[in-house]
């Protein structure tokens, strides 16, 4: 899934990568809230554009574009369902406003994907685990989280090996109708699960051998410290949030077609 491709972390060093994950998460949540608050196209365009500098600063433009391209499929579904249903309800007269409304809904989704993608592209799972720990999530859960992330590529590779092995024995994965195809994957899933269980046992053994659970007051090699950049981002986010809430209730938001007379004249 190319949309998820854009959520995969790669180690790059940039001012955005160095930010505290908690502050970045606060920013994502704020973005989410603001995007949901508005149904008009204009503020959503603004939201989309103000995030672009963050992407270029984080030097993840390529991956980010990839995730945007992946989101395009879902975005078009959102666009067409909104468009078709509003059209059915409101008829032909309101076509420009329906068009604008559907575009706004689509852009809302894109803004959400954009901010989440910035978060995941620039936050190492290690830091994420650490942030969870600092937020008083029990260490066992944080550990389970980072370990799960760490074993994704390992299991993917293993699945590929099993698939090759089963194909070599004559298993045809791409044959038959949908039900048959799903059933074709059973001989792949079972060894994969059995192997995963065996692997987890070995992991547990290795963890025990390295003093897992020796003390309640576990230390951590890394430390999260709020630096200047974190305060700046937090401040900007608060300002944006306040402005957005204020504008929502006190400033009437013009429609794009009201600004551009060529559309309004129709």
């Amino acid at each position, binding site marked *: 899934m190319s949309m998820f491709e854009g959520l995969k972390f790669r*180690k790059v060093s940039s001012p955005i990568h160095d930010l505290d994950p908690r502050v970045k998460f606060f920013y994502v949540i704020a973005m989410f809230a603001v995007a949901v608050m508005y149904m008009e196209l204009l503020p959503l365009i603004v939201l989309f554009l103000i995030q672009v500098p963050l992407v270029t600063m984080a030097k993840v433009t390529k991956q980010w574009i990839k995730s945007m391209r992946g989101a395009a499929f879902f975005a078009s579904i959102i666009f067409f369902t909104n468009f078709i249903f509003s059209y059915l309800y409101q008829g032909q007269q309101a076509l420009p406003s329906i068009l604008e409304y559907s575009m706004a809904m689509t852009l809302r989704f894109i803004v959400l994907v954009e901010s989440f993608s910035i978060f995941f592209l620039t936050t*190492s*799972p*290690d830091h994420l685990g650490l942030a969870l720990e600092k937020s008083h999530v029990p260490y066992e859960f944080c*550990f389970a989280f*980072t*370990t799960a*992330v*760490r074993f994704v*590529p*390992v299991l993917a590779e293993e699945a590929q090996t099993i698939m090759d092995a089963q194909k070599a024995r004559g298993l045809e994965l791409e044959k038959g109708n949908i039900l048959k195809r799903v059933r074709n994957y059973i001989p792949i899933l079972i060894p994969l699960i059995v192997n995963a269980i065996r*692997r987890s046992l*070995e*992991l*547990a*053994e*290795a*963890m*025990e*051998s*390295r*003093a*897992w*659970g*020796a*003390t309640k*007051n*576990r*230390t*951590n*090699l*890394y*430390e999260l410290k709020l630096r200047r950049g974190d305060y700046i981002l937090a401040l900007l986010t608060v300002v944006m949030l306040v402005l957005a809430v204020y504008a929502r209730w006190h400033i009437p938001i013009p429609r794009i077609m009201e600004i551009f007379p060529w559309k309004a004249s129709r």
Partner: protein
Amino acid sequence: MAIIETEKLTYTYPGAEKTSIENISIKIEEGEFVLLTGPSGCGKTTLCRCFNGLIPHFYEGKLEGKIQVVGLDVVKHPIHELAKHVGLVFQNPENQLFALSVEKDVAFGLENLGIPRKEIRQRVDWALKTTDIYHLRERPPYELSGGQQQRVAIASVLAMQPEVMVLDEPTSFLDPLGAKRIFEDIHKLNKELGITIILVEHRLDLTAKYANRIIIMDNGKVILNGKPREILDSEKARLIGIGIPKVTRLYQFLNGKGMRLNYVPLSSEEMAKKLKEVFKQ
């Protein structure tokens, strides 16, 4: 006092009918390099699990007899306490690394012990430098080669500064050259840091020269236990079917042909030197 001492150690896995190890009485002295070998399924891994308390704490089952490691009774001390003294390195490097960066993995044990951050940093850097992987510290373990991964596993055990290191077939997933390097590293830890090594290995060709002692197990019992040269030359060792080094076989062959070399060679270097001396005479 010996650093590891077992007396009539017998263990049965839960649900198993047959004992996995039986009547094991061995003594290992501090600073020794012990090579533990024997056919697959002979109980080597089971014995290793006893050294750091995985047996009986992690695998329940029935343990009889006595086992003391670094003066601690294994049955009475939890694994995490024994882990400070005995490091275990497993066969598959992939399944003993859990973090997303090498240095975090090496720090894992120290973090669990609650050691202050500054000291963790020092010990991690030291362990990484000792095992020659300092330059890899920020890489994710799954991107590394098998040999590098196994080095990370060794470093992560080393960082805990144990007195004893038990390595259970650490090279069975590696290519010969990677294996050779790992053995050299292990030898270095033994020579320079004085860590007692217990190495489970089939490749005696590469390891016999480092060992002070070889223990051969078969069917859950210790069959032979003694000096490498005596053990490898014995008829019993050959019959069990362990991989006697080729140079030792050559020595036996030459001996049979009436060519007397005065000691059993353990490595090709030793053999070459010996042969040169003989030919000069």
